[in-house]
């Protein structure tokens, strides 16, 4: 296994200039959208990919311009345009009961790919993993409406509770062999689309950059175990994972993550928390509500509640912080398959056995409670949520709050109702003796020194 990357990665070196992660993230996003719009003029091949299980490393090797339809959909929410796109697709016939990301995207297709952030090019190939089954149905929609060929990347996931797969064991080897076979098939398809020969050295280079991003990303995640938490996983964290996805395997991505880590280390050293007086550390489970995310966070932060961790940061960033996920660049393809199979089991499909990792994360991040955000749109995160919550309440006595809205459909946001529930949750946390007012927990000095 290559360790050079980790040894060389600078940790804690002061940044040359102040780094504003939010502003830098926005700049990178604007650049990316501009690159999307220009891709056809450049004659660059285009691939649609999802955030969970996407073979980005291979696509980058072939210089594909990447389109993330989930990000396009969430951006319609952030830019307050989602309802219009959703309505267009419902008028077309899409059921109100399906994923609103899919509906916003069908709306986008019906609007000739005009997105509030710019023109979205049509893809030459779409990669859809089975991690969320909706990905496959979504890709089938592109097959029909845009003639985009779909490549379904089948990743064997976690089969049951307490399912422990260790790198190199027989099960992992068998699963990785199947993933590798599919990568080889995909490579052939990419060669046909681009007219280029696959270059193994380039794959190794992309992987090396991913390794470095993941190294910093792991540290960024670990640093939020500190009290007070330097960032809010469900606000600042959303920018971070956006970059983890869109710039995965690029020099810009490495640089962003390196500077982000430096910035956050600085905050930790200074004892700066995301909220002035951190009184409650919380874990957010589920997907954001992009149309009202700032409002939701405000409801928590006014009580001194900060989201120290969210499982969204794990699964929506491809599961790369799930441990031991470092590519061996001396055997790029085999290693890509091995790590992809591991990430599928440890960081993505373990969503279906969420109680196991949540129990661990409650301890890792020393949280006072869990906030579950259930949404009709996303059965991937929501179907087992109420049962998981019940289990954690009963077995581990973890206090929790359950709220419901949607990812991007504003019609499901009920401000007064959610505020009432949030307030009642904090009242009960107080009654249970949690988070004494104005008495932040002491800083765990050693936390954040990632291995």
């Amino acid at each position, binding site marked *: 296994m290559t360790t050079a990357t980790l040894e060389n990665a600078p940790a804690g070196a002061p940044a040359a200039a102040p780094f504003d992660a939010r502003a830098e993230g926005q700049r990178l996003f604007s650049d990316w959208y501009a690159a999307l719009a220009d891709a056809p003029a450049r004659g660059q091949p285009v691939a649609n990919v999802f955030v969970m299980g996407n073979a980005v490393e291979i696509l980058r090797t072939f210089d594909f311009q990447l389109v993330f339809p989930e990000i396009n959909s969430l951006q319609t929410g952030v830019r307050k345009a989602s309802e219009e796109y959703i309505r267009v697709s419902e008028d077309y016939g899409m059921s109100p009961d399906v994923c609103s990301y899919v509906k916003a995207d069908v709306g986008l297709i019906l609007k000739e790919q005009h997105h509030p952030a710019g023109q979205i090019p049509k893809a030459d190939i779409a990669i859809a993993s089975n991690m969320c089954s909706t990905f496959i149905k979504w890709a089938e929609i592109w097959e029909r409406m845009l003639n985009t060929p779909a490549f379904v990347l*089948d990743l064997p996931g*976690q089969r049951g*509770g307490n399912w422990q797969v260790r790198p190199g064991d027989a099960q992992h080897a068998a699963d990785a062999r*199947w993933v590798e076979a599919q990568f080889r098939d995909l490579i052939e398809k990419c060669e046909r689309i681009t007219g280029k020969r696959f270059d193994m050295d380039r794959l190794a280079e992309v992987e090396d950059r991913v390794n470095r991003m993941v190294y910093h990303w792991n540290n960024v995640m670990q640093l939020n175990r500190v009290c007070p938490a330097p960032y809010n996983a469900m606000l600042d964290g959303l920018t971070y994972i956006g970059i983890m996805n869109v710039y995965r395997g690029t020099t810009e991505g490495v640089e962003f993550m390196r500077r982000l880590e430096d910035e956050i280390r600085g905050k930790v050293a200074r004892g700066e928390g995301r909220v002035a007086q951190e009184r409650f550390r919380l874990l957010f489970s589920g997907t954001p509500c992009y149309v009202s995310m700032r409002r939701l966070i405000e409801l928590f932060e006014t009580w001194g509640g900060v989201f120290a961790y969210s499982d969204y940061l794990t699964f929506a960033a491809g599961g790369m912080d799930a441990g031991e996920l470092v590519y061996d660049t001396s055997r790029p393809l085999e290693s890509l398959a091995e790590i992809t199979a591991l990430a599928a089991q440890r960081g993505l499909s373990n969503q*279906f056995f969420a109680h196991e990792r949540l129990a661990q994360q409650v301890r890792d991040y020393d949280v006072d409670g869990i906030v579950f955000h*259930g949404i009709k749109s996303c*059965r991937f995160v929501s179907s087992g949520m*109420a*049962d998981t919550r019940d289990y954690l309440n009963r077995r581990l006595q973890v206090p929790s709050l359950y709220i419901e809205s949607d990812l991007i459909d504003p019609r499901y946001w009920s401000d007064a109702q959610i505020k009432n529930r949030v307030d009642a949750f904090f009242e009960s946390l107080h009654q249970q003796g949690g988070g004494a007012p104005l008495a932040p927990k002491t800083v765990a000095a050693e936390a954040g020194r990632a291995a």
Partner: protein
Amino acid sequence: MTAQIPYDHQAELEDVLERCNALRQAPVPSGDALPEGYTGTLGHFPVYFPEEIAHAAGLLPVSVLGGGNKLEMKHADARMGSFVCSICRSTAELGLNGSLQSLSGFITHPICDAAKHLAGIWSRNFPEQLSQILYLPQNVNTPGAVRYVAAEYQRLRAELERKTGRSISDEALRASIRVYNENRRLLRDLYAVRRDEPWKLSCTESYLLTRARTRIPCEEHNALLGRALDAIGQRRQAAQDKPRVVFVGGFCEQPPLEMLETIDGNCYVVDDDLLVGLRWLTSDVPDAGDPVWALAESFVERSAASPVQHDARKTKEGYLMEMISSSRADGAVLTAAKFCEPGLDEQVAWSKHLDQLRVPYLVLEFEEKMTSFEQMGMQVETFAESLLFTLA
């Protein structure tokens, strides 16, 4: 010498159908009620499950198909969001109310995310059962798919061996394959009657006959189907003036029986995807050579289609059109279970495609807990009349 009792085919068929209907509502057998030779039951969720492997392990494969419209929901409402389809919620209810406590295991599949979550619900609430996802592939087109499926079947085989303490020999597997091959043949015959002489066998009857396999050993089901097919062959019913339609959308959650009866009342349903998982392998599985490989290869190379299986060789529109043309149907009933994301997505795609080809269709949404069918009855009647009018 006893006098020969004259064979009354109608009484015989009624007898078989009555038994099938009783089986539809029967609890999962356990203890003394287990059929001879079986040490337990293995529950499996739709769509497809390689029952032969459980059968060879001495575990009765039991399809868990939800709770129908008679089940009272007491526990599951608090454990699964209101936005989840009925079959998942009522399956959870059956687990939580103790109806499935005798299962040795419960296996679900990556057909959709709600179904995958059932494995988590099982592992949290019934840790004594073997609760797993059998990761059947969504990519059956890459070379290596058969090898992967075979490995996943071997894994299942080993899990069942551990659970039962009994090894599953290749010979036992081949014997099970032969029993199921016979079943596949009989089910093909049943569907041939529907296609060729639909007045002899309604969709509801055929559904009941097929569904009986979900509670009894395959051998017994074979005998039951044999009796039914003999009796059906002798039925002398005249063809009525009804349009021929195909029914799609019944691949996972089960439409209420009354819904099928409503459609039967107005149309001849000449093909459908009801319980398609029980008919997934479309021809005999080779009963020589490596039996696990044979099952895996059949899954990849000789299988049906559904909205929850991606296969580049079979587009959803393509297999619907193939159903329509091979059964010489005049139109289609496109259904979807409420909150079933894959079904609802397909319904849109199918209707757009049929619009283009000017094939008449009716869109219906159902829920297993539906109890009122009047409005649906009127919709079906209007659809059937318009079809007859166009055909006249």
